[in-house]
């Protein structure tokens, strides 16, 4: 299935022509080309060979490595045990009826997160000209914070997770979405257009983080795109803080969110008050 050579077109670099063929072949494999693109693909002698290449790649990817049957049974037993013992399954109607109760839990969880070390207290109040700390500095400071608050953080986070996850199996409409439409004193038009959460005070940020973590862990909310590849943490929401676009990041993970950080975009600078 050797593909034919590249066409000779002095007005078009080979790489560009090849890239076109690649995209056409990929789209053809997925049956996603428009009628016009299909005509182009049929006229391009390279495409057929590439489609064969890509189909072979797909076959390889779909071929699963052997799965340990014992491990599979262990996993399924654990999941089913969770289903029976604690992972309460809540229907939509039942969930809606429990909305009021959920708000109480959310407030409790927000209070718990508020005691976690190191976030944004002065970040919000200092304004855009505040000092910027490096990622390494934040990591160092975060380690110190985690050490000093290890005991309380361990207990608190466990409580947040245990209390928040089952209750979070509820439509997000009454939680974060509500905050996005009603939060802040006066979210500006640009922020609304960008669909960012406007954060105006630390308490709001902590409550937002708590709700988002619960929703993400419950599978009701997707993680946002994080363009900052060097950040050691999980971005949970794009926000607007002090007229700056940023990402709200939890670290070290969603399971153990001991630290919140604000990562300013597009520079990907990590800003935090953990050293204060």
């Amino acid at each position, binding site marked *: *299935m*050797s593909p034919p*050579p*590249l066409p000779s077109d002095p007005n078009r670099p080979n790489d560009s022509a*090849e*890239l076109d063929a*690649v*995209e056409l*072949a*990929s*789209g053809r494999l*997925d*049956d*996603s080309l428009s009628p016009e693109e299909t005509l182009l693909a049929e006229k391009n002698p390279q495409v057929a*060979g*590439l489609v064969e*290449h890509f189909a*072979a*790649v*797909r076959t*390889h*990817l*779909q071929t*699963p*490595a052997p*799965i340990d049957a014992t*491990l*599979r049974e262990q*996993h*399924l037993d654990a*999941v*089913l045990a969770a*289903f*029976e013992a604690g*992972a*309460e*399954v809540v*229907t*939509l109607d*039942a*969930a809606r009826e429990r909305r009021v109760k959920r708000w109480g839990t959310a407030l409790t969880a927000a209070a718990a997160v508020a005691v976690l070390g190191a976030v944004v207290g002065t970040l919000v109040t200092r304004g855009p000209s505040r000092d910027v700390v490096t990622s390494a500095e934040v990591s160092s400071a975060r380690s110190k914070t985690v050490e000093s608050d290890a005991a309380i953080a361990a207990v608190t986070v466990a409580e947040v997770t245990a209390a928040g996850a089952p209750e979070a*199996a509820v*439509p997000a409409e009454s939680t974060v979405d509500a905050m996005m439409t009603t939060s802040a004193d006066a979210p500006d038009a640009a922020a609304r257009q960008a669909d960012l959460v406007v954060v105006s005070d630390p308490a709001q940020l902590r409550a937002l983080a708590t709700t988002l973590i619960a929703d993400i*862990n*419950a*599978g*009701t909310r*997707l*993680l*946002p*795109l*994080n363009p900052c*590849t060097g*950040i*050691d943490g*999980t*971005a949970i929401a794009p926000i607007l803080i002090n007229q700056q676009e940023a990402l709200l990041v939890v670290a*070290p*993970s*969603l399971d153990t969110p001991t630290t919140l950080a604000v990562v300013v975009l597009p520079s990907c600078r990590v800003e935090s008050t953990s050293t204060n």
Partner: protein
Amino acid sequence: MDAVDSAPDGDSSGTSRPGVGGTDDRSLVAAAQSGDRAALDTLLRRHYDRVTNICRRILHNDADAADATQDALIAAVRGLGRFDGNAAFSTWLYRIATNTCLDQLRRRKRRPTAPLEQLLNVGGLLETRPFDATVVDQMAVQHALERMPDDFRVAVVLRDVADLDYADIADTLGVPIGTVRSRIARGRAWLAKELGNQTGPADRQTDHP
């Protein structure tokens, strides 16, 4: 190319249960939402292998993939009551698995990957030898996947392993459909080129005397 609301390929159930083994996902979900443990067991067995394969391809580490698989299934069970059937259950489940894997990726120390410029330069693909399925083994596939930037690897895995359509992938990753299309095409080109270079040296000598 939409995910179908029935058992995917690679059904691992093995033991088909009377009454529920041949039932479609939608019925099983409804039964599980009502507390039917057997229905949930069948549902999970039906999708276990696919979820595991998705996690292996994204995380390229069996231990991490095993953890992510279990985490994803537990998250799915916890959120099952909220599944409204608007999408296929498989689509919903694979999105949860993907999110779990993405979180896992961000959690662990990042490994060096190929520079983006290298990925974007697909030049030479057409001169690459076609690869033989009997020569390229699973290790080679995993090795090639490991060196891809996360964004491209995840897009290809969601399309070719999870069988999600472009719109679902775009929704899952929070990027435009055009970006998804481009990432999948470039990712496939990368893999085809890498796997084409996995053929034996004797063959290469024959081709390039």
